């Protein structure tokens, strides 16, 4: 078999992405048709920047979902004779199979690794961001609302973490040695409690007067939360559904830890601003509890800036994960996550540039999409 030409490579890659194109087309068509009923998301279709961001983000989400059918090869299999082969090289011993973007230093398919890598990034980055938001919101709301000593202490702690050079914190926190000491376990034990506290307070403040609803929501929160908590933080899930690899847990916790102080500061600032509004005064006069006001009056009104920051922060977390991978602190040594692949590829950059290029472009387009989306959302939410 002959090597594919550049044109053939492009057509084949585009064809591999068929499920993504169909999905993208359907989602965009439906959203466009319903754009007047979809609130902020629908308004996004008014700005070119927002739409291009949305397309890029959707592209990678769909790629992660359909990764198994898009990838042409197994991302971990090494095929002899394919080491550092150029893009479009036919796989030896397999009729009708090509390494579309070439082979890497360990003779694995670069294209499939890039596609599979999207799953890892899109699983960790949004999840870590959500946890960081839970921590930041649960602490930022009372700090901004009550002020006083509590606020001073928390702000000092937040500034402490923020004054830490991020890279240094990662070098200290993400090491094999630290796992033996149990520091990540303690951190996860504390950080993973916040989502449960958040939901308990959310339902308690709302349904305090309605015992049935209160009982149901709290029971669901405690059972589901406690189940996930036991599995994720301590790996003691009796059913084995929730599980996190110790190394992954270490990375996850560190990323949440680095991100939450910034979220805390944003939420605190927004709360201080919003608590002077009339509707908060009205709620106070009605005799609502502070937690009801914080979670059901202040938080919904702070959603605009928070959604924008959420998008930006997923992008930033993606960059952070890439940085970790770049220094060889990635999820697992073999995993196709983008940062790790870039790190492996950079060593032979001058001779074989093709293994490093696809993951860099993938990472860049994903982050670019998120940033454009955030920009579009900001523009549209400021408009009214």
């Amino acid at each position, binding site marked *: 078999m002959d090597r594919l030409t550049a044109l053939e490579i492009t057509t084949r890659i585009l064809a591999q992405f068929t499920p993504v194109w169909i999905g993208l087309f359907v989602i965009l068509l439906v959203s466009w048709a319903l754009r007047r009923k979809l609130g902020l998301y629908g308004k996004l279709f008014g700005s070119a920047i927002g739409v291009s961001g949305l397309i890029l983000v959707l592209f990678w989400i769909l790629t992660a979902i359909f990764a198994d059918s898009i990838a042409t090869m197994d991302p971990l299999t090494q095929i002899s004779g394919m080491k550092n082969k150029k893009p479009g090289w036919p796989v030896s011993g397999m009729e009708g199979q090509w390494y579309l973007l070439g082979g890497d230093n360990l003779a694995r398919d670069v294209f499939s690794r890039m596609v599979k890598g999207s799953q890892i990034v899109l699983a960790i980055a949004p999840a870590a961001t959500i946890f960081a938001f839970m921590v930041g919101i649960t602490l930022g709301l009372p700090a901004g609302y009550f002020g006083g000593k509590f606020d001073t202490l928390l702000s000092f702690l937040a500034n402490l973490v923020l*004054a830490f050079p991020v890279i*240094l914190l990662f070098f200290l926190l993400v090491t094999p040695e630290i796992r033996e000491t149990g520091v990540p376990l303690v951190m996860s034990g504390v950080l993973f409690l916040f989502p449960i506290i958040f939901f308990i307070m959310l339902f308690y403040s709302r349904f305090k007067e309605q015992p049935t609803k209160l009982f149901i929501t709290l029971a669901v929160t405690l059972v589901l939360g406690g189940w996930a908590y036991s599995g994720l933080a301590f790996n003691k899930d009796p059913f084995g559904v929730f599980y996190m690899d110790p190394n992954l847990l270490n990375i996850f916790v560190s990323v949440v830890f680095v991100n939450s102080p910034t979220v805390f500061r944003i939420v605190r600032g927004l709360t201080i601003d919003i608590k002077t509004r009339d509707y908060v005064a009205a709620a106070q006069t009605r005799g609502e509890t502070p937690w009801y006001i914080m979670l059901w009056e202040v938080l919904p009104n702070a959603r605009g800036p928070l959604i924008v920051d959420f998008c930006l922060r997923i992008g930033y977390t993606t960059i952070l994960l890439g*940085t970790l991978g770049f220094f060889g602190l990635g999820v697992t040594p073999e995993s196709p996550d983008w940062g790790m692949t870039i790190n492996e590829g950079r060593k032979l950059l*001058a001779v074989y540039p093709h293994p490093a290029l696809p993951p860099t472009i993938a990472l860049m387009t994903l982050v670019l999409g998120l940033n454009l989306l955030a920009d579009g959302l900001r523009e549209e939410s400021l408009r009214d």
Partner: protein
Amino acid sequence: MGSFLLRRSGVMLLTALCLTFIVFFLTNLEPNLEKLTKSEGNMRMSDAQVQSWLEKNGYRQSLIKRYGEWLGVAPGWTRTDEDGKTTGRCIKRGVDPENPPKYCGMLQGNWGFSLVFKENIKGIIAEKLALTGKLMLCVLLVMVPAALIIGVVAGMREGTKTDRSLSAFSILTTSTPEYVSGVIFIIVFASKFGGLRWFKGTAATAMDNITFENFTLPVITLALYGVGYIARMTRASMAEVMTEQYIRTARLKGLSFSGVVLKHALRNALIAPFTVIMLQIPWLLTGVVIVETLFNYKGFGWTLVAAVGNNDIELLLACSVVAVFVVLITQLISDIGYAFLNPRIRVS
């Protein structure tokens, strides 16, 4: 202003103490100490031997005491073994064992000895900081003017085509971390794949002799990520100033557009970016580590990676102290500078 400065410096000192303590705690975790013992002694030490080595070398005191010793506020440990030989933290070669200095920590200028480089840490840090200083200087010289020009030009006529394309460029650069742009630049400008080969893909030679050829790529890579962020802040600030009443007054007075921008708008629009630029310097630190690793430029960031990789506890501690102080001092300068530049705060 005086009390503000005093309070700010007090908080800064407290922060520095907390941060160095955290770093001290994290670098002196049990597994790290065991690794250190084995690399100092020999790899096949038994657990009991490891423990006795740690005991002998003062690692078994309480963490607070050891932190105090390392900082130089607690007297260094001394110990006399059975043969009557005195050892201690402050007793090094060339020091009279009968009469050692009482304190020997960071504050006394005793930064320790690097295991990787086999040199005094103070010398290493000074040398590496000088190298990184050169890099940072070039980066700031490229980044700040570029970012300000982009931001001002985009912000002075909001919503125009120029504004949109410059904003898109800013978003693109903030989405491109150093390890992505660095790799792309090397491929395009320094490998046979890109075919251009204008620059060198390594900056190893730049340590002795900086040339346009070997220093451009690291500087551009590092500057690019920050440009977008500063430019966006400048643009926002500029766009806000351009809607102010006094700009309209100046315009109605008959001043030309460029006159208004240069004389009235710029001075007010540049207050916010100043803070952002100062706060960007700690952010550059992560970039410095990445770029120095990628381009093999053996400066401060490269040293940090080497210290981590080789479990060189004292060097890592020294690097961390420097990094933490760089961050805190830039924060202080940005606070003071902001208060100084902004007449509303300065007067009150």
